[in-house]
């Protein structure tokens, strides 16, 4: 999911029309615009942005 806003230990992330607040303590150096993998309300890792965009594109094509 893409980070749209940061606020301390939390960030607002979105994917399509889904928006969530997630904890970001587990991943260092995040900024708005980064892509993260979210698990049970926490960002668990940053996703390579180029590959994240490519994957989203492939998923869209399959749909």
């Amino acid at each position: 999911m893409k980070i749209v806003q940061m606020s301390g230990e939390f960030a607002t992330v979105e994917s399509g029309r889904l928006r969530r607040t997630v904890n970001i303590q587990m991943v260092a150096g995040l900024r708005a615009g980064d892509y993260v993998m979210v698990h049970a309300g926490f960002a668990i890792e940053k996703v390579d942005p180029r590959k994240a965009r490519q994957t989203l594109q492939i998923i869209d094509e399959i749909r």
Partner: protein
Amino acid sequence: MEVCGTHTQNFRRFGLHKVLPPQLKLLAGPGCPVCVSAPDFIDRAILYARLPGVIIATYGDMLRVPGSSSTLERERARGASVHLVYSALEALVLAQKNPRHKVIFLAVGFETTAPTIALTVRAAFRTRVRNLFFFSSLKLIPPAMRHLLTRGRGPEIQGFLCPGHVSSIIGIKPYDFIAKSYTIGCCIAGFEPHDMLQGVLSLIRQHNDRTPGVVNQYRRLVKPCGNRRAQRIIADVFEVCRADWRGLGVIEASGLTLKKRLRGFDAEQAIPVPAMTPARKGGRDVSCRCQEVLAAQISPVECPLFRKKCSPSRPLGPCMVSSEGACNAYYRYR
């Protein structure tokens, strides 16, 4: 073998099992956290739910897992306070809002979930919340994979499709022993159809070329060293312990329990309930073969209850309950 329950689900959901060659057999592994929680864990969670002044906080899949004589869903219908949460942090909020109650969070999951629970324990410690307790069934994947290779029964495994999100935490190295000591190839794969097909192709090549290793197909997420910060968080809060797995039995050094200094948050220490003895058990359909499904000894369709007495609307075993369970996947996607 696809170790992760989400891989099992997605192989079926995307119909990939139908396009793969028939001589390739996919074995569902023990990577569904709800499914591998020992029957005794469910029974004791039910005993906790029956205690006055206790609120159970749990991920949704646990609600309908049958214990020996009841489920958390049934206990809730009888008046027990059982709350579903998406994140462990919601259990913390629940404890803060209900200071006169004891909130027990059912800590179920693997290495991906462990740091999220560890951070919640830390937050409870920091904010001096003393009415939140963790009942841990947290488990570690590589020891279970080793167990599958050393148990001396079950089908021969010729490749492991390794879990993507667990690997994002632990990295590549914990699988090295599989390639080196057992000459079996591993591939860490993502969860999209193309990820999983690339993963299977890698395993076939490793097997045919006799070049077992640990291939990382999921490089957009998984770093070779994993998430070091998450590893430190886990090590700060938990210590490794032996754990009881449904289907696999007790495996040494395959679980996580709270460290001594945090034992005040440990439900088993703070609010002990008795383990269920065989004499007190009963009521559950003994012909349920989830244990063998989890050990990859049978396919879900070989269970006599599958599609007959057991379905997602009336599950008799955890593998049919959970959205990551093999029986659930085989039922929903033929």
